[in-house]
């Protein structure tokens, strides 16, 4: 191919810096969003693995007990009777640092003398030198050096932590200095104490969280494993190290998938942008391309020319997008971490973990979508026959004829999408979602034509001749307007779909909270993260508060994590307040039938739990209790939006019988009739503060708790909202680019109109009307597509990812918002070209080209 051809191509691109810049920006934004989400979720996952590695160390097996751990006698037995050498006791608890808001730590109580084979970074061979302070000083801690410095803590400084509603000052006696960045991240949120200090902080004398073991694969090791297993008391089990952590981590898979899919939506919008740009550049160069063909340039050369042009744009956009994505990832990481904290487990991630894989994936996505988007315009360019080249109207006519065929293809694609929704699994859900979306995009040109014909009369009445001109200009050039409207429609429908989904979810949560929270006052220790009750209340405090004057009845709840063969299970034991049935809404089972069974030892499970484990009423849940594994019959399935992992709920009596744990995580108090709530809360707060140790507990009214819960919900969806916003930004850039190109195309035509006597104001009006009309049409088309999208998200994706079902709730406000967004974006996009053209002198406009 001759250099001259490339020069012509370059000149063409250089003449349209604005348009080219915008499409580069569009692809850059799409790539950035995809990369950022990938990096953020990947980093969160990696941080979890690292944190697990930091605290699991080289352990191959773990001995674990029930919710209150296991007796330290088991450890003594291992050491003295079985002579097990590589065993390390661990007391682990999650703690918050109230002086450093947002910081959560895993406090790891270890025996430094047993640590060396497990976590060499915490152990020491030289007990006299390094670990003396840790062992002999109550409340001594060691933490990662970088974290200590980030918190402004020097050795000797005090770090106050909160455990079970009480504050404890700890002394930093030393630091663990990581040797590499990976270790820095692994140790980031770990506090190491002597096991004695950890037991004292946890208030769990005589108990261990677990015992780590290193056991090899030789026959002698297997025999040892068997001897250990036989020697363990009931309720205590030997497990492969990391098994629990794996189960925990896999819960976030669906959440991650959702984010990735939403981020791809941004890239799809970006793809439309490239398609649009390339189509335009082909249309604009029809004459040139036709001439070239007449001069003997082959189809292949034309095809290559267009593809390479697109690839160049895509490459620049991808590079920019990778840079932008790295910056964006840091911000998203924060939001993703918060959601994981609220929904799943405590996690602290400060740094984006960059992998070559993620970057290559983003590059592949960027270039791949570009090439894909350029295929059609490139093919179209090769189809230009030398003789017809100068007849532009033929193309438009062909486009118009193609519209019904595209619509048919779109319909078929949509049908495929619906079919894809049938198999289980969230991945298929997203495949279906994208197919439906693309199908809708293909149907857009026909829909636009139909819609505009229907609007013809109202437009004529409202805008007269000029209005009609604007409308006709759209249908006259479907090759240019169709794609722009489709891109805008896709973007707006995505925002409508995600918006309706969030609103439906919020409405369901609101109704659920109203039904569930029936007591007047709730007491709970400030939990570390989100809504999961994990700490316990001081029993004396429970007594003081439950017997306060004005309290008619008190209910309790105890939330713990219990091991099961299929991973950890969140169990909540409820002590019902006399005369107040808990306000659960049942999906399966009638309350009057369920509660008597629960009293007799049955359990009820939340909807996500039933979905995840494929269990129903009449099935049994197997949980590891004090006496070993026990099966609990399921009496009902209740709606619960608090935990995506699922909850098993049982009566207090059942729980105490099987786990011998008397801890209370939260308290629900019912006021006696006629008692003023404000004064009751004040009285309760005074009682809480009156104890020997002032209790650091939250005493909240029903309303305050409901608001706090909703705030957590909103926080959980913050990352989804941000993604929605980013999609809008990409769409906006797309519309700007498409309409600017369109307006530039029409310079000549408008110059003619000016010459025929249209005032600059009228020209401005025509262009504004045209862009506004396109926005309106896109917005109107986006409404049904958006609602369809929301339906798929709510009924298919959410259910498969999280196990939640909820009624869809279409707020007119969200639809209107989408419509306004489309019109506003279009008007804004049309403003610049309109102003420029209105100013341009007709002579100049005509002289152009």
């Amino acid at each position, binding site marked *: 191919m001759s250099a001259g051809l490339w020069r012509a191509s370059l000149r063409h691109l250089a003449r349209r810096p604005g348009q080219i810049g915008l499409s580069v920006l569009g692809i850059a934004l799409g790539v950035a969003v995809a990369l950022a989400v990938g990096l953020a979720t990947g980093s969160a996952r990696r941080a979890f693995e690292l944190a697990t590695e930091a605290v699991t160390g080289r352990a191959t097996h773990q001995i674990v007990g029930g919710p209150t751990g296991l007796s330290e006698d088991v450890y003594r037995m291992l050491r003295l009777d079985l002579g097990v050498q590589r065993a390390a006791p661990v007391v682990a608890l999650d703690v918050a640092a109230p002086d450093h808001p947002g910081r959560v730590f895993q406090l790891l109580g270890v025996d430094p003398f047993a640590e060396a084979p497990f976590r060499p970074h915490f152990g020491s061979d030289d*007990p006299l030198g390094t670990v*003396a302070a840790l062992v002999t000083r109550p409340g001594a801690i060691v933490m990662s050096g970088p974290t200590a410095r980030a918190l402004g803590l020097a*050795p000797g400084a005090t770090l106050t932590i909160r455990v079970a509603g009480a504050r404890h000052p700890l002394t930093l006696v*030393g630091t663990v200095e990581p040797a590499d960045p990976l270790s820095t991240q692994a140790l980031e949120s770990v506090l190491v104490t002597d096991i004695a200090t950890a037991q004292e902080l946890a208030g769990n*004398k*005589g108990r261990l969280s677990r015992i780590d073991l290193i056991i090899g694969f030789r026959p002698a090791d297997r025999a040892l494993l068997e001897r250990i297993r036989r020697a363990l008391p009931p309720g205590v089990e030997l497990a492969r190290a990391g098994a629990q952590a794996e189960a925990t981590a896999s819960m976030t898979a669906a959440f991650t998938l959702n984010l990735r899919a939403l981020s791809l939506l941004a890239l799809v919008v970006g793809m439309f942008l490239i398609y649009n740009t390339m189509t335009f550049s082909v249309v604009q160069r029809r004459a040139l391309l036709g001439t070239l063909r007449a001069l003997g340039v*082959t189809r*292949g050369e034309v*095809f290559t020319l267009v593809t390479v042009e697109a690839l160049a744009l895509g490459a620049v956009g991808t590079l920019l997008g990778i840079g932008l994505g790295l910056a964006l990832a840091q911000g998203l990481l924060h939001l993703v971490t918060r959601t994981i904290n609220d929904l799943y487990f405590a996690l602290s991630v400060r740094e984006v973990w960059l992998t070559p894989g993620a970057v290559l994936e983003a590059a592949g996505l960027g270039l791949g979508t570009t090439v894909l988007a350029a295929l059609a315009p490139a093919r179209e360019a090769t189809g230009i026959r030398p003789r017809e080249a100068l007849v532009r109207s033929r193309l438009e006519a062909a486009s118009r004829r193609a519209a019904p065929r595209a619509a048919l293809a779109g319909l078929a694609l949509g049908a495929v999408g619906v079919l894809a929704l049938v198999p289980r699994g969230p991945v298929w859900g997203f495949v279906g979602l994208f197919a439906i979306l693309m199908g809708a995009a293909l149907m857009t040109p026909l829909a636009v034509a139909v819609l505009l014909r229907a609007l013809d009369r109202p437009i004529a009445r409202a805008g007269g001749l000029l209005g009609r001109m604007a409308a006709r200009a759209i249908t006259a050039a479907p090759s240019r307007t169709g794609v722009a409207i489709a891109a805008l429609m896709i973007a707006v429908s995505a925002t409508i779909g995600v918006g309706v989904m969030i609103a439906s979810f919020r409405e369901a949560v609101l109704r659920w909270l109203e039904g569930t929270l029936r007591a007047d006052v709730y007491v709970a220790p400030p939990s570390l993260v989100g809504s999961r009750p994990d700490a316990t209340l001081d029993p004396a405090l429970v007594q003081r508060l439950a017997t306060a004057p004005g309290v008619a009845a008190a209910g309790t709840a105890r939330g713990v994590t219990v091991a099961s063969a299929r991973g950890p299970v969140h169990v909540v034991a409820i002590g019902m307040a006399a005369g107040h049935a808990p306000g659960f809404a049942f999906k399966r089972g009638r309350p009057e039938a369920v509660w008597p069974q629960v009293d007799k030892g049955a359990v009820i499970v939340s909807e996500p739990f039933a979905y995840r484990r494929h269990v129903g009423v009449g099935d049994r849940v197997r949980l590891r209790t004090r006496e070993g594994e026990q099966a609990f019959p399921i009496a009902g399935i209740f709606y619960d939006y608090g935990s995506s992992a699922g909850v098993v709920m049982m009566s207090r009596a059942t729980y105490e019988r099987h786990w011998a744990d008397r801890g209370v995580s939260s308290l629900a108090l019912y006021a006696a009739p006629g008692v003023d709530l404000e004064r009751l809360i004040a009285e309760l707060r005074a009682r809480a503060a009156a104890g020997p140790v002032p209790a650091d507990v939250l005493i909240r009214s029903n309303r305050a708790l409901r608001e706090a819960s909703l705030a957590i919900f909103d926080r959980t969806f913050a990352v989804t909202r941000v993604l929605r916003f980013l999609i809008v930004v990409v769409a906006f850039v797309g519309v700007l680019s498409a309409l600017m190109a369109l307006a530039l195309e029409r310079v000549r035509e408008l110059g003619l109109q000016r010459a025929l006597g249209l005032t600059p104001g009228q020209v401005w009006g025509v262009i504004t009307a045209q862009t506004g009309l396109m926005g309106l049409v896109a917005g109107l088309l986006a409404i049904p597509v958006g609602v369809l999208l929301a339906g798929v998200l709510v009924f298919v994706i959410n259910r498969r990812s999280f196990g939640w079902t909820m009624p869809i709730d279409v707020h007119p406000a969200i639809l209107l918002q989408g419509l306004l967004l489309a019109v506003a974006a279009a008007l804004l996009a049309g403003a610049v070209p309109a102003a420029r053209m209105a100013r341009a002198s007709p002579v100049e406009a005509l002289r152009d080209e």
Partner: protein
Amino acid sequence: MNERERRERATAQTWAWVRWAAARIALLTLVLGLGIVALVMVTEGPRWYPASPVRARLSVAEALGGVPATGFARALTPQPFTFPRDHGPHPDFRTEWWYWTGNLLAPSGRHFGFQLTFFRAALAPGAPRRESDWATSQVYLAHFALTDTRSERFRSWSRTSRGALGLAGATAEPFRVWLGDWEARSEGAATFPLRLHAGDEDVSVDLWLDGGKPPVAQGDAGLSRKGPEPGNASYYYSFTRMPARGVVRVRGERLDVEGLAWMDREWSTSALGKDLAGWDWFALQLEDGRDLMFYQLRRQDGGAAEWSAGVLVDAKGTAHPLGARDVRVESRGTWRSPRSNVAYPAGWRLTGAGLTLELEPRLADQEMDVSPRYWEGAVKVRGFEGSRPVLGSGYVELVGYGERRLGAKR
């Protein structure tokens, strides 16, 4: 040129362009990929980490770490020993040990040497009053080694545990010192016989020790001075000849053994003077019924310190103290450890108390693979008293070679 030819040429041309385009796109992708990698490398620096285990180092502030000597009792004046009380622990002192070594023979004449030592180290003075049963300031270390002379194998192990929760500890009545399942304990109400048990992997030792000769108070009635300052001393007594019998298990073999053991008991807070680097300790049991102990304290410059001392116990059990000048120790060679690359003396001639004794290690490599490292090994004794030949066996301990000054060990 007919129609078909033209079409064929056009097709060929198209394919040529497609190939050309494919090459261009591949090149572009490659350049772009490299560009991205370079960009990220430049902006991100060395953050491409492989998956590796956590690597970090514990660092404790100087002011907060370590164990100061203040607050502990000191060995200042001779205190008569009271048994069985003094077999038990002395937690007011910072450091203490129960030390058994011995030479054992199987009926076939196969020789074994063993060492089993329990160290107690206090991390802080006083006993903590805390809620958790794990809380303690006492740490126990134990070293166990077996010299299998015929197989030319020497193996050693060490263990550490806090002195809490029954995991490790020591009691006087009934006597017991233990760490995990390694222990030395009285079998009945009396202190002796003692039962010793230790083992790891495919090696274990089960021995019954009698008291043998009465205990010998070392130094000045039990106060063993090791430096010029008051308090640079330890309380030190020994059982120099303990008849031992029992079982050695090694690599699947079970052997009945008999022999002689030696027990050292010592406690102190700050034994060594500042200028001392370490010591060479000799504990020899002669076939004529006499036992000789001598330790030579080495100065940092390598010379023998004036605080070196020893004792000669006659067959009846009467102790005759030896001063630094009473015994001359000459090293006959060196052995360099392949593990630590530390050079130890190997083979000695001891001259004094009318004896000239040649000491030869049963194995060259009896270096304890523990932290800090030291050499502790069985030796064969041959020599003369005047012209009368003298035979025996014993143990030698070499501490402070190639290591920093010691804290936990003597």
